[in-house]
């Protein structure tokens, strides 16, 4: 019981520097996740029709629903999906990759892979499919 009381005191005490960090730390994280290479849905909409959407989610999720016109390009089936992507991609097009949600890493991995394959204007949709579905 003594250990629990002490632990609660420590947990409370740690709140003080944490609050200072949240308020003043120069590298404090934002409450909305924006990572390098990510763009918001509003930004993509402002780009108009010159965007090529890429769905990085597994095939089953793509079948259930996807952004209209999006090309399926997953790491699992990279060799078969990439030629289909290249058929539709034009070098002056902006490519926007998405996966399930904010915490999903697939879109970043696919974007990185595309860059390695010479597709330079690649972005990742912030919030992924969930954001698109919520605001369409």
């Amino acid at each position: 019981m003594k250990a629990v009381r002490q632990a609660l005191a420590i947990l409370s005490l740690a709140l003080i520097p944490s609050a200072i960090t949240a308020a003043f730390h120069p590298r404090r994280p934002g409450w909305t996740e924006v990572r390098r290479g990510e763009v918001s849905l509003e930004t993509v909409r402002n780009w108009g029709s010159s965007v090529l959407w890429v769905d990085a989610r597994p095939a089953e999720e793509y079948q259930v629903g996807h952004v209209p016109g999006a090309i399926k390009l997953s790491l699992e089936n990279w060799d078969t999906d990439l030629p289909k992507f290249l058929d539709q991609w034009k070098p002056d097009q902006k490519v926007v990759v998405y996966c399930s949600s904010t915490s999903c890493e697939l879109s970043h991995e696919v974007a990185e892979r595309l860059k390695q394959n010479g597709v330079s204007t690649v972005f990742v949709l912030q919030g992924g499919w969930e954001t698109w579905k919520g605001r369409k």
Partner: protein
Amino acid sequence: MFIRIVLSFLFIFAGATKAYDPSEFAREIARYQLVPWTVSVLGAIYLPWLEMLTGILLLLKRFERGALLIVTVLLLVFSGALASAMVRGLNIDCGCFGRAFAATGTLTPLIRNLVLLTCASVVWVDGQQPPQNEG
């Protein structure tokens, strides 16, 4: 005594490396795909200080039982997250020491955590024993 000091310094060091760059630590937490981004942010802001505080208290032998309890719970939580990442086949780095070390994957940190849990148990049991009479 030695184990307690090692455990203390490891927690102080781990906390300090993460407290230096909470944004990066939030991204490390998010890569586990276990909690929403907001929770990752809260964890990134709070956990480094909790680690440092428990490490310092353990070192100073103040609130020792409470600090040990927190150390044990934290190690269990971290180990659970690492095991879950391994099971789901996530190719991520542990994020245990910020960017202080090169990427270590998940298996090595999981084994290290299990060793540290054993160390915490030893310190816990050692603290339960009555002091020996000298002379």
